[in-house]
């Protein structure tokens, strides 16, 4: 009996996955290789770059496992490899699909002279290891492929670097950091100088994982440098990374800064999504089976025609073509329908698919051919859904665990496994239902009765039987039989209803709600100009176009036009010097719209309250969302792809059409066009929109150095810190700053560097605009940020500060409207953050009368020029001097009226001053009784007199506080009736150890303070003690109060001095004395000085306490006891005659002392 395998053969390549290192340059992997549209697209991009220019490029291919990325890399390897069979095979494969690309590939070899040797090919599969290790292995492989060993230095100049790097990598020493990026770039350059270098990193995601987990040196610059070395005008280095997730997704969970750095690197790469559509996959299936029996072929075609008809009637357009159905034979049409979806959803794409088709497994299609008998007048044997089920599900060839749909999978698989006693037709149909359930989301591919009739003509009856056994249930809302429980939520209905609603919204709204396009980097322009240019991207459907704000972090905007796609929007005339706006105008957005609506509808359905409560529905919708997003991404890539989309740089007219080219070349062209005068900064750390923490610190130090050490070489920096690097690259190289030690030469000035010239002129134009009125610094910043200069935001403050310092004597700076006489580092820190808070005004050199006045003032005030070559005479120098002088004054001087009238007036004018020229030529002269100095006056006769008066005013203000203290010293000495501080100090010192009332004690101690050097310091403390306020803070009222308080305190002090003196006379020793006056009832009085010797104090107190206690106990009231005791003591004090005489003497001495105190 004839078997199918007699007439049909199977192409055998697809049984295993490709490995770059193992399979490179082998013929076998190419055998039976099918060049699909996606593959061709990638090959075309790379060979076009190689054929058209001297430089290379960088691509990152993202696609799921098993989608054939590695096989593609092998094809690429062969295509650009050395002359030989492998290359010929590869080129033949390409020629078959697209002769044009074949020609381009040959041209590439021609251009680079690699017809014999081929390109250098560094192919590597990454592991979880530092990127530098992966790249090094690749480069080593490339060298060995060409030379079989590392050649001598004479032949390969980077040989030593390569050897060192290899030994670095091999060393276990953790202190070694492995090969440096610079070394690797050097090796790559060395290779590329000889022949173009192709570097392919497969499984690049593993490198990124190693970086994310922190176990590896994650220097993104290596890749960036390699990419840059190849782009623009660089060397022919072609970098291709292959990964199944985008950089960003691989780095999910990594630190924000790390992700940003990588996003920047990815910006250097052209992203290619490597996903085949089901139709393409099905076309691949068709290439596997080769029918070499004509009769069989015509039988198959007849069968296919009738199948296609049935499928068409079921609305399955994908298989409505008999050719497609026939090509897939021996697969049942439903099997070819579900296979691509099944493999992409649950398996590793094509790898899984072809294992099934061509593998040796007993359930595989190849085995089927070997067992299926073919006979005339009997139906053609077909590989049905049941066999597909057996291979993929029952035998566990597929593992759903990674697909996010495992629960449905497990449910279905276990239900069928656990059902016994089914007849063969029942089993077959149940498996068909199960398989359709697994791949269906909604729409036509589902286990409906009509569909199942294709599996078995008696499906209706079998379904009833199956329903009775409970294996399958019919879900009415979905019109579908199911072997899994699923949900009762009408998902299809929900999505359809949502679709209905969504479809009426404008496309731009739908798109904006489902997709946030990522910013794009103008890769070529960026690498050529060493300046990252990034465009924000958004969907747009016409209407007014507003260019980006000057301060936007983006350098321009790309509008993805999705409305009326034929017309080009235009900008208003105000947008002349604005950031570029580019419109991408696709020819057709139908698919984009359909897929976007689908995403939006699923999102909408997910928000339905019924769905929220039903996890099965939720999960199903989430799966569907993921699916529809993939479709959407593909549609977006198609709509705005190279061939289908027009790129226009907008202007006030109809715009400039850009060459579409590959990747972001249109953006680069727009940047070339618009940013014509961008200065080179030469420092990657500074030349950014946002600085890193380290960069920010370095810039702060740089600004501080500029402001405070402009006359020192290297702004006073030493060593090799980043601030020094910024200085060298941006200031020294360009001659913005010229440092000459010991020579106060103009430090900042116009750069000699040509590339900075335009920027400098733009800034000067802004400064000159400030001659008539103040100009906000934000405007100056904006002029530098916008085209044609387009400086990066972080550089602008440095540049503007240089400009301000260069014109310090002409440009006045105001913060929040207040004149700032000097630019200090702290003002600069605020200026960097909020330029809008600052204004500048230009004071052109003064002439005529004003010049005379300024000169006279400069002479009188002894203001020297800051820089030797500059003229002194400028308003800002004088006003700066005056204002700084007033700032130093203490509060007393600022408040007191005890100044001459002129000084008072001048002081108030200086404090209130807002405008320098207004102060100097109007307010101040008027305050001092002079007439204003008009700007148009030729002469001013009172110039000298005015200057002298201003000088005296300043002198008076400066001396005011000292004068107050000197006056106070005089007053105190007068009150104390002494001539010197030392005399008073001595008297007070004598009282230091006495027990005194706290208030008096503080005063006495202040008088006794001999730790000070001069009268005024001494007085300041005394005045503070008396007034409870430091004299620098006094007002005139405080002074008045002080005078009277001082008199009282001095009086008390003098009494104490007298008392002390008397005590000394009486017997000396420290005292605690009281003067007691007793007035008797007849009016006679007696005064007596009493004291307790310190030695007897405690003893006396004890006696007194016990007497008081005893008396209180007896009398009952402490008050009465105290009074009684006091009265008795008074009586006891009644003096006898001798005592009275003595007391009389005391009194006389006291009175004499007091007289002396009072009248001197």
């Amino acid at each position, binding site marked *: 009996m004839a078997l199918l395998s007699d007439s049909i053969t199977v192409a055998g390549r697809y049984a295993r996955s490709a490995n770059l290192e193992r399979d490179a340059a082998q013929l076998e992997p190419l055998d039976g290789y099918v060049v699909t549209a996606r593959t061709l697209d990638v090959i075309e991009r790379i060979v076009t770059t190689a054929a058209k220019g001297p430089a290379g490029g960088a691509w990152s291919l993202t696609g799921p496992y098993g989608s054939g990325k590695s096989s593609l890399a092998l094809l690429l390897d062969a295509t650009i490899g050395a002359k030989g069979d492998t290359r010929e095979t590869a080129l033949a494969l390409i020629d078959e699909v697209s002769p044009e690309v074949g020609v381009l590939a040959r041209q590439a070899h021609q251009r680079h002279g690699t017809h014999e040797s081929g390109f250098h090919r560094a192919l590597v599969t990454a592991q979880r290891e530092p990127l530098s290790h992966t790249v090094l292995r690749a480069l080593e492989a490339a060298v060995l492929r060409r030379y079989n060993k590392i050649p001598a230095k004479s032949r390969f100049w980077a040989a030593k670097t390569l050897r060192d790097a290899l030994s670095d990598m091999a060393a276990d020493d953790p202190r070694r950091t492995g090969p440096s990026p610079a070394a690797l770039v050097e090796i790559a350059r060395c290779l590329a100088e000889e022949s173009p270098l192709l570097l392919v990193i497969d499984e690049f995601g593993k490198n990124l994982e190693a970086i994310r987990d922190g176990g590896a040196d994650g220097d993104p610059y290596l890749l960036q440098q390699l990419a840059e070395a190849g782009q623009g005008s660089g060397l022919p280095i072609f970098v291709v990374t292959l990964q199944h997730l985008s950089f960003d997704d691989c780095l999910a969970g990594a630190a924000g800064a790390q992700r940003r750095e990588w996003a920047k690197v990815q910006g250097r790469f052209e992203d290619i999504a490597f996903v085949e559509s089901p139709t393409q996959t099905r076309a691949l299936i068709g290439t596997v089976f080769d029918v070499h029996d004509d009769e069989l072929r015509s039988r198959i075609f007849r069968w296919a025609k009738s199948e296609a008809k049935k499928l068409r009637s079921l609305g399955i357009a994908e298989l409505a073509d008999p050719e497609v159905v026939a090509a897939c034979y021996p697969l049942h049409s439903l099997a070819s329908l579900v296979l691509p979806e099944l493999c992409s959803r649950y398996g590793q794409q094509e790898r899984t698919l072809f294992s099934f088709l061509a593998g040796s497994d007993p359930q595989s299609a190849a085995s089927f051919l070997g067992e299926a008998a073919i006979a005339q007048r009997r139906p053609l044997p077909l590989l049905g859904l049941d066999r597909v089920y057996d291979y993929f599900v029952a035998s566990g060839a597929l593992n759903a665990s990674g697909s996010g749909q495992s629960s449905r999978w497990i449910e279905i698989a276990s239900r069928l496994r656990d059902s016994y006693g089914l007849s063969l037709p029942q089993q077959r149909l149940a498996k068909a239902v199960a398989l359709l359930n697994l791949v269906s989301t909604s729409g036509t591919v589902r286990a409906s009765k009509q569909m199942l009739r294709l599996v078995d003509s008696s499906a209706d009856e079998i379904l009833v039987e199956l329903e009775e056994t409970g294996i399958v249930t019919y879900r009415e809302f979905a019109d579908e039989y199911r072997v899994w429980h699923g949900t009762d939520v009408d998902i299809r209905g929900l999505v359809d209803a949502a679709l209905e609603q969504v479809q009426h919204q404008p496309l731009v709204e739908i798109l904006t709600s489902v997709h946030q396009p990522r910013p794009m980097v103008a890769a070529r322009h960026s690498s050529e100009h060493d300046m990252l240019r990034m465009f924000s991207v958004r969907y747009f459907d016409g209407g007014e176009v507003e260019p980006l704000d000057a301060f936007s972090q983006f350098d321009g905007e790309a509008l993805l036009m999705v409305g009326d796609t034929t017309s080009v929007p235009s900008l208003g005339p105000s947008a002349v010097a604005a950031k570029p706006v580019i419109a991408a105008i696709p020819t057709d957005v139908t698919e984009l719209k359909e897929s976007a609506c689908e995403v939006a509808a699923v999102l909408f359905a997910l928000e339905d309250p019924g769905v929220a409560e039903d996890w099965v529905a939720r999960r199903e919708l989430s799966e569907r969302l993921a699916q529809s997003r993939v479709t959407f991404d593909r549609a977006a890539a198609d709509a705005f792809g190279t061939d289908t989309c027009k790129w226009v740089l907008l202007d006030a007219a109809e715009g400039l059409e850009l060459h579409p080219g590959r990747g972001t070349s249109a953006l680069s062209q727009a940047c070339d066009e618009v940013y014509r005068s961008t200065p080179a900064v030469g420092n990657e750390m500074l030349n950014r929109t946002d600085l890193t923490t380290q960069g920010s610190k370095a810039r702060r130090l740089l600004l501080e150095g500029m402001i405070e050490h402009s006359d020192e070489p290297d702004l006073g920096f030493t060593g090799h810190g980043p601030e020094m690097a910024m200085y060298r690259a941006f200031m020294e190289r360009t001659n913005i700053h010229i440092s000459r030690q010991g020579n106060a030469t103009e430090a900042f000035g116009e750069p000699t560097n040509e590339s900075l010239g335009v920027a400098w002129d733009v800034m000067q134009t802004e400064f000159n605009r400030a001659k008539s009125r103040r100009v906000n610094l934000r405007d100056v910043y904006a002029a530098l940020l916008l085209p044609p200069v387009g400086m990066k935001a972080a550089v602008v403050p440095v540049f503007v500060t240089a400009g301000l310092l260069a014109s310090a004597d002409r440009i006045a700076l105001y913060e929040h409207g207040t004149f700032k006489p000097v630019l200090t580092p702290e003002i600069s820190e605020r200026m960097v953050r909020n330029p809008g808070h600052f204004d500048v005004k230009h004071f052109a050199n003064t002439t005529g009368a004003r010049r005379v006045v300024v000169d006279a003032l400069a002479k009188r005030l002894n203001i020297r020029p800051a820089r030797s070559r500059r003229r002194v005479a400028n308003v800002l120098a004088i006003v700066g001097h005056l204002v700084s002088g007033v700032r130093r004054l203490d509060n007393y001087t600022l408040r007191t009226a005890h100044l001459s009238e002129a000084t008072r007036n001048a002081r108030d004018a200086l404090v209130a001053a807002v405008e320098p020229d207004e102060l100097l030529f109007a307010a101040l002269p008027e305050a001092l009784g002079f007439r204003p100095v008009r700007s148009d006056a030729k002469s001013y006769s009172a110039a000298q007199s005015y200057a002298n008066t201003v000088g005296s005013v300043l002198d008076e203000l400066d001396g005011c506080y000292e004068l107050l203290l000197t006056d106070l010293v005089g007053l105190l000495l007068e009150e104390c009736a002494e001539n010197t501080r030392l005399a008073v100090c001595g008297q007070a010192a004598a009282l230091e150890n006495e027990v005194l009332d706290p208030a008096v004690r503080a005063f006495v101690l202040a008088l006794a303070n001999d730790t000070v050097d001069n009268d005024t310091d001494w007085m300041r403390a005394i005045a503070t003690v008396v007034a409870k306020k430091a004299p620098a*803070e006094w007002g005139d009222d405080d002074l008045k109060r002080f005078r009277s308080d001082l008199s009282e305190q001095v009086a008390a002090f003098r009494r104490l001095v007298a008392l002390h003196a008397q005590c000394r006379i009486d017997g000396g020793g420290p005292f605690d004395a009281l003067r007691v006056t007793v007035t008797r009832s007849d009016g006679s009085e007696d005064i007596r000085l009493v004291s307790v010797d310190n030695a007897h104090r405690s003893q006396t107190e004890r006696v007194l306490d016990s007497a008081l206690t005893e008396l209180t106990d007896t009398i009952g009231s402490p008050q009465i006891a105290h009074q009684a005791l006091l009265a008795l003591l008074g009586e006891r004090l009644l003096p006898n005659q001798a005592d009275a005489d003595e007391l009389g003497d005391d009194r006389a001495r006291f009175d004499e002392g007091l007289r002396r105190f009072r009248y001197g």
Partner: protein
Amino acid sequence: MGEVVRHICGISGGKDSSALAVYLRGEVPEMEYFFCDTGAELPETYEYLTRLEAILGKPIARLNASRGFDHWFEVFRGALPSPQMRWCTKNMKIKPIEEWIGDAPAVSYVAIRADESNRKGYVSTKPNIKTLFPFIEDGVDHDGVMRILQDAGIGLPEYYEWRTRSGCYFCFYQRKAEWIGLSERHPELFDRAVAIEQKVLQDAGVDGDADFGDQAMRGRQYTWSGGETLLQLRSRRDQILERHEASLARSNKSRTNVPLVEALADALDEDDDTLPCTVCAL
């Protein structure tokens, strides 16, 4: 020749550090006094500092004078400090102090009293700084401090009448009753604090206010005092004062003869046990 050793004494504007300065006035002639100025201290504090300078006969170096709160408020574009993000302490106290001290060997005198030796002050971790605690060594306690201040004729800073600590007028560690105190003693500063709460710097220059409302954490209402804005807090004035009186009374009952300063501190501590910024209040 060895390097010259500096002797330094930090003044916080509070009573203890001021007393220590006076206490050491004759003892360490080469003493350098310093005060970390936030530019937002209470007027009483500034006034007290000039008083102290006059009494000491020496200037107190004002660190940080040109980069006070207003400066950082502008640099951070209205992002305000809080216990979680205490940039105020870092930028206006610790950094300036460490910068000022530099790397020369120094002896730092810290005013922790004998009766509070478990308190922590700013004790530098820099290796070149040796820290001394003269009050602990000499057994100077609270009464001792009061005596020193009295003898010097300098008295207490006036804010002790309504607030327990020195520091910024808007210090987020101050208690609700102290905010009420601020609103009554310095209504203009209270208004300024209200404005800052709304990310507005009043009278930043001749042009008037600087508004950062649309910058830092846009749309998020910051509050100095937990859970309510200052205006809401002020509207609860009577309630807050009542509670304050009650806790004052409670704390007075348990101790007799307590000076007002202490009683106030006890009462205020009752409604809040967060540790304040030790750097500011030293």
